[in-house]
């Protein structure tokens, strides 16, 4: 059984008082003027968590360790979204018996590729004395660095010994050093210490608290948040040296990570999670109705959203709220067909700005977003409006009541009605009107874009009326909606909430409201720039804060993995 760390005592109230005392002293003496705004609230943290790697994290790690030419075929069991985020659901995710088989099979395929004759020279720091016989020294030279990268910490002596023993015995039986090595690597790739991100906890070194994350656990938390992959060698070295325990050391690593191109992957992963982009994997459109939005174009539509977000938030360091009224994006040939514009380099992504006359502004009006929240063959103002409310504004729209009489809406002739006319019928029913009022105004303002996100001036022969009202702000058309959205306080609030939850891997608790308020205020004062928000989160002690669990409450990853493997180990 593999245990997570045993924890100590609950964070004491004195810790917060000590922090406040320091703040008062520093500000009174005027030592650090710049830091003397509102003090950052101290949170008690959460219990240490065990999170299953997402499929993309698994892939990223393998590609980081072994190179992107390693083919990773197959799918894993999906992680159920919790409170809007897969990152939160990952802490509840288990590995079923059938899923474990998939991991095992995948691990074997990866290991075979790594030790194959074509690739071994890339990864092996040594050559065995004889290929037909085990060579512990050479195997150790392979397992130590690879295991460190996979487990996000050095292998323990027993873990290393297990790998060496397995490789040795298998190598002897199979008469091939590399076959033995592959089996040893396979065992690492199905080890829960690889498949789960486990918060390691140790006795606190500071008097401010009683227990804290290990340096390696901090490194993992940083890395999965900012890069969506495991820590690199530099970050692991910093963890090993204790650099992450000091503000200067932590800042140096954060600064480095924020400069890395991997930050793009991290931001893409955050917004992919927050905006449910994994649903593009299953998005299908009626190609007779929307021939331009074929499967390749759907992939491009997702990528356009990601590229736009990355460019807006990272390259331009622009106001997050302007993402909902930006006309700047990237385009390629396939998307040019949908947006009906020429693309000078159809095979490349090219910077592009929607002309004002197109009325297209904000990512909510991009073909990817509109298509994701539409029916296969037609638009859906309700689904689209619900998407905006729930994903961009973090506002829960209740599911429809179970006793709705749909004959009202499916009467003969309804297919010839405009969307606005059809939805007017919904709004005439009291039990429907409450929710439709929340969603439909938004969706109807985007009706100039059909179910594939293509512009259209009319619906059922009638000029589309895109006027609406968002939380008291009336507007005339889609660009008005874009402006209203960008000014809506729920937009930045939702981002801060979801970014915090994503980074921490758990839903925020009521006790963390003060930190949330603090970050939101800081976000506003910083003109809603996203990178400073990320920096504020990861350089805060709150990001790594944990609280103890009862002494008898040992956490075990065993609860998360295949019961069948448990039996195997017993046998």
């Amino acid at each position, binding site marked *: 059984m593999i245990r997570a760390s045993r924890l100590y005592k609950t964070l004491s109230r004195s810790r917060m008082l000590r922090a406040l005392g320091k703040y008062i002293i520093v500000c009174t003496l005027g030592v650090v003027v710049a830091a003397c705004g509102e003090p950052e609230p101290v949170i008690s943290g959460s219990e240490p968590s065990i999170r299953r790697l997402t499929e*993309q994290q698994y892939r990223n790690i393998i590609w980081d360790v072994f190179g992107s030419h390693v083919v990773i075929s197959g799918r894993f069991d999906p992680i159920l979204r919790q409170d809007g985020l897969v990152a939160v659901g990952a802490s509840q995710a288990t590995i079923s018996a059938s899923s474990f088989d998939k991991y095992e099979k995948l691990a074997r395929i990866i290991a075979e590729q790594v030790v194959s004759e074509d690739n071994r020279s890339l990864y092996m720091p040594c050559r065995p004395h004889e290929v037909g016989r085990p060579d512990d020294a050479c195997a150790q030279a392979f397992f130590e660095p690879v295991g460190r990268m996979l487990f996000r910490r050095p292998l323990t002596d027993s873990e290393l010994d297990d790998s060496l023993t397995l490789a040795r015995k298998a190598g002897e039986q199979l008469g091939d050093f590399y076959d033995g090595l592959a089996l040893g690597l396979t065992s690492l790739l199905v080890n829960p210490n690889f498949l789960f991100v486990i918060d390691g906890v140790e006795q606190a070194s500071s008097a401010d608290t009683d227990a804290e994350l290990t340096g390696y656990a901090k490194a993992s938390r940083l890395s999965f948040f900012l890069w969506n992959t495991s820590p690199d060698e530099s970050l692991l070295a910093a963890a090993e040296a204790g650099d992450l325990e000091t503000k200067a050391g932590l800042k140096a690593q954060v600064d480095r990570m924020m400069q890395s191109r991997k930050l793009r992957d991290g931001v893409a992963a955050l917004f992919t999670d927050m905006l449910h982009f994994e649903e593009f994997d299953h998005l299908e459109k009626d190609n007779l109705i929307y021939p331009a939005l074929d499967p390749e174009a759907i992939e491009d539509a997702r*990528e356009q959203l990601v590229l736009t977000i990355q460019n807006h938030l990272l390259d331009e360091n622009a106001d997050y709220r302007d993402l909902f009224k930006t006309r700047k994006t990237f385009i390629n040939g396939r998307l040019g067909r949908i947006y009906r514009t*020429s693309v000078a380099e159809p095979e*490349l992504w090219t910077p592009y700005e929607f002309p004002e006359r197109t009325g297209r502004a904000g990512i909510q009006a991009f073909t990817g977003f509109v298509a994701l929240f539409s029916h296969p063959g037609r638009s859906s103002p309700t689904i689209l409006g619900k998407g905006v409310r729930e994903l961009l504004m973090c506002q829960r729209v209740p599911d429809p009541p179970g006793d709705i009489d749909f004959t009202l809406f499916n009467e003969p002739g309804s297919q010839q009605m405009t969307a606005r006319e059809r939805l007017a019928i919904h709004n005439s029913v009291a039990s429907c009107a409450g929710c439709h009022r929340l969603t439909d105004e938004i969706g109807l303002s985007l009706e100039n874009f059909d179910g594939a996100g293509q512009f259209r001036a009319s619906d059922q022969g009638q000029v589309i009326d895109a006027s609406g009202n968002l939380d008291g702000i009336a507007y005339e058309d889609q660009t008005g909606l874009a402006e209203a959205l960008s000014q809506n306080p729920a937009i930045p609030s939702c981002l801060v909430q979801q970014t915090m939850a994503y980074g921490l891997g758990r839903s925020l608790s009521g006790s963390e409201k003060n930190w949330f308020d603090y970050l939101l205020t800081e976000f506003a004062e910083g003109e809603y720039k996203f990178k400073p928000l990320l920096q504020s989160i990861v350089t805060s002690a709150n990001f790594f804060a944990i609280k103890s669990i009862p002494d008898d409450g040992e956490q075990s990853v065993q609860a998360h993995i295949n019961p069948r493997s448990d039996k195997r180990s017993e046998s």
Partner: protein
Amino acid sequence: MNAAHRKYRLRKTLIGASASMLAVGTLNGTVQAAEENKLGFVIESWYTAVYDTEYMEECPEGIVIGNDEIWLDGLSPEELEVQTGGGTLEVLDEPRRPNQYLRGPNGEDVCWHPESVIDPPMRTVHGKYSYGMNLDGNADGAATPKTCEHGNFVTPDGSIKGVDNQLYRLMGCVHGYRTEGYLEHHANRERQDESKGVILIDVKNVDDPRSDDEVEVSFHLSATRLDFDISGQIVPYGSYKTMPNRYGDTVKGQIAGGVLTTDPSDVTLPIYGNDGVTDMVFRDFRIEIEIAEDGTRAKGLWAGYHPVSSFWDHIQKVQHNAPVGQYSCPAMYVAAHELADGYPDPETGQCTALSSAFSFEAVAGFIIEDDGAGDMKRLAASNAEELE
């Protein structure tokens, strides 16, 4: 492509996207604006304009005698025994086909050396109707300074008299060029499948896409892959780059009631298909295209005098079409010169070009004239990606 592969591809394309950003800069730089005052079309398919009827009234002599028949007739009984496997090889297949054009007196390829043998005269069209245009401006077929005396046609709907289409007269009874034939369907399929030889029509200075008395029309060879929807049609509004430094002839035109026409001018178009790659040269070339109300599709004709030399350049390069399409190169060569009705040789008075018409269908697209600079961007992007 499975979902996992798509994921992998997404990662690769994201990297590629980063690379492309390195190559072209971020959005702070210049941004591309949507094109205005332009129309563009990519030709989806084109055919020699052949008016054929079910009972072949236009071909009273019957279908053209094919190369295969002539070749068989020329074989001695002994050769016939060998070449037909004792009479068992009835279909046009190996090993009969490769030998058929090599029937000159010294084994010459008769499509490359059409004067090396004399075949029975080619059966040609004698009907009244044809698609096409009145190229010489008269309705009686009388000779003019630019034409020789020739027969004229009337369009099937009777709307145009004096239609000049001697290429139809020449090819209209060739099985391979008729509706039930194979050659041009196959050539279109090749152009579509391989995205080669695809013709682009670029219309500039368009103030009103339904009515404009002066526009500029250019004809290009596309350098971009075609994309089709599930019904097999090209997806509208793709972006198509022109092949740099090739083709690009420009003519004056006008749009009236959604119909684009051009003034006569000399134009060269690419031709690709049935494994043949060459140019189609036209004198007094012009087009007439009816653009759909929504602008997504168009169909029409191009017409002009097609020099026999240009026509024959193509025919001899696709000599393998002769047995499939069922015609004789030597007979066609003779008939082509006899039927030529345009551009008389100043010395001999013999006309050198065939009046012709071709029907085509096109799909709206964006035409991007490539000056070759894009190659550097692509190279930079590729290099940047490798550095990732």
